[in-house]
């Protein structure tokens, strides 16, 4: 199943089953969505429930909050996470706080879906991953979907949830054809053990999952049997699954596309420090994007983010340096 079809199916099923589900965003309606996630929905559910908005991200999220208060279940699409900076106040100061500061009186069932990450030469203002900006906010649930199965189940869960969910997708995944599994007892907060292994735990999420899988094949040639874990949920973080793996492997690497400094990996490392310090044979290795805005030129762009080759090199170097 195409990744984007899995998302489409999740929305479609929810809209079909529950009249209160609506979607809103730039070009989500007649255009079918920038990445075609909402294709076909407007003809099925009409323009009152599939809402083409003006370019006003603050209002897209603010309007969604108001709809949620009124009893709808809005799914707001921000065309890319880069533009969500304009909606930050509504997301952090409102969606995340209204319930708490009203002593539990307000209920905000909403989803904000946003693609992000480095696509192909979209340059500095269109290539960010702002996982940290959201996963550091109390009151939000932050999920990432690296694959069709999680995209479908995770998004469905998010739509049905009565709390605000930030649902992060990756631009390069939309057209990918992926394996799809129906899951009965789906738990959005569980990390996925993508591949078991004995020697090393590699944590990752979103598009980097695929780079890590590539890298692992290469690592195998060096006799390294890596366990790969896809985090899925960034807030809350499934530290239990992570800790269990580290107990076994004694070594951990996190691979993320976001800038290294202050990226998602920092919090993961901090929780590992707290939970697994005595299990570690070496410091956790962060492999992440460089600390610069993303440049347009393809060579520089690739140099700014992890690639399978670089992942392998950095792991080998780190192993050598730490004698492990």
């Amino acid at each position, binding site marked *: 199943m195409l990744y984007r079809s899995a998302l489409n199916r999740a929305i479609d099923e929810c809209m079909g089953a529950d009249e209160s589900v609506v979607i809103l965003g730039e070009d989500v309606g007649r255009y079918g969505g920038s990445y075609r996630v909402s294709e076909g929905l407007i003809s099925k559910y009409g323009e009152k429930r599939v*809402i083409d908005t003006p370019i006003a991200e603050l209002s897209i999220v603010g309007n969604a909050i108001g709809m949620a208060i009124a009893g709808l279940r809005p799914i707001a699409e921000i065309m890319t996470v880069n533009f969500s900076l304009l909606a930050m106040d509504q997301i952090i100061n409102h969606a995340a706080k209204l319930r708490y500061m009203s002593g539990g009186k307000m209920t905000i069932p909403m989803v904000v879906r946003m693609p992000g990450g480095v696509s192909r030469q979209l340059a500095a203002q269109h290539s960010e991953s702002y996982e940290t900006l959201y996963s550091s906010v109390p009151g939000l649930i932050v999920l990432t979907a690296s694959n069709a199965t999680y995209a479908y189940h995770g998004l469905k869960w998010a739509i049905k949830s009565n709390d605000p969910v930030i649902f992060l997708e990756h631009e390069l995944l939309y057209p990918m054809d992926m394996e799809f599994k129906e899951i009965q007892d789906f738990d959005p907060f569980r990390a996925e053990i993508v591949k078991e292994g004995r020697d090393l735990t590699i944590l990752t999420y979103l598009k980097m999952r695929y780079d890590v899988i590539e890298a692992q094949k290469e690592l195998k040639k060096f006799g390294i049997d890596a366990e790969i874990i896809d985090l899925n949920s960034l807030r809350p973080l499934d530290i239990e699954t992570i800790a269990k793996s580290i107990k076994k492997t004694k070594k951990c690497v996190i691979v993320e596309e976001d800038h290294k400094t202050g990226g998602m990996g920092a919090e993961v490392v901090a929780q590992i420090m707290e939970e697994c310090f005595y299990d570690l044979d070496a410091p956790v290795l962060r492999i992440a994007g460089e600390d610069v805005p993303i440049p347009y030129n393809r060579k520089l762009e690739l140099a700014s983010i992890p690639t399978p080759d670089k992942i392998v090199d950095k792991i080998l170097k780190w192993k050598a340096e730490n004698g492990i």
Partner: protein
Amino acid sequence: MNRARVEKFYYLMKLGREFELKAKEHYMLGDIAGFLHLDIGQEAVSVGTMQAFDKGDVFTHYREHVLALARGMDPKIVMAELFGKKTGVSKGKGGSMHLFDPKLDFYGGDAIVAGHLPIAVGCAYARKLQGEKAGVFAIFGDGASNAGAFFESINIASAWKLPIMFFAENNYYAIGTHISWVSPFVDLVEKAKNYMPTFTCDGMDVCDVYNTVTQAKEIIENGLGPVFIEAKTYRYEGHSMSDAGKYRSEEEMEIFKRKDPIENLKKKAIELNLVDEKYFRELDAKVEYVINEAVEFAASSPEPEIEELWEDLFCKECENVIP
């Protein structure tokens, strides 16, 4: 104006005024803290709007005690909230700036200037979809009328003909900044009149506010889209308890104090022979009683338990599943 209406208006305005004077006192005593924004002088707006706009949803900013009381919120639980007590309307977690009561369709108390406006617009969208005629009421200050969130809101509400009343409470100042320094218009209707029908009313006259809102809300109820009302008014106090309000002249203050909404309503009602002085004394006594009761309730209520710190972040379903 009739006797019943005079009673309601006077009682609520007086209740608001005395409530806030008491709150001020208890702020000084340390029972209340944080930001406390008093509405004193502006009661005609809070009471006139809420009496006229008596159905539908209400979204407001942080200067909202009187609006909440006029909407029907029990003074006890408002005062308890100010005292930070467990019995407060937001369980002591919100305080003065965050009074919420979905049972009254009161989603008020936003402390981000203009931050509630896109939310109100979204609610109006939903109400239209749901076929609810009453629509949404959103009040904000002159300062808010310069924010992107305000402009996006009138633009969207107008484009989509949403059932929402934008009520601009123009008290000329945003903290210490006069509207004329930072806006091309002192008359805020100028910002909206291309977008929707606009109205102005005297924010020191509760009847005028009431009548204007009553008239304007017909447009909404008839599905004709948004409206915009501006009321010029004045706060007698500083912006909040931490502001002495020294940037305003005595003369300016006097002009408005002479138009005091409570005193003037009283005078007019007596002139019209609708009621007599004694009648007001009785209402005053009732107000005093209710306020004292509210303070007593607040003072004697328990504080929240420490455990509550971790409650109310998520709904029960999520609280249960989130590790």
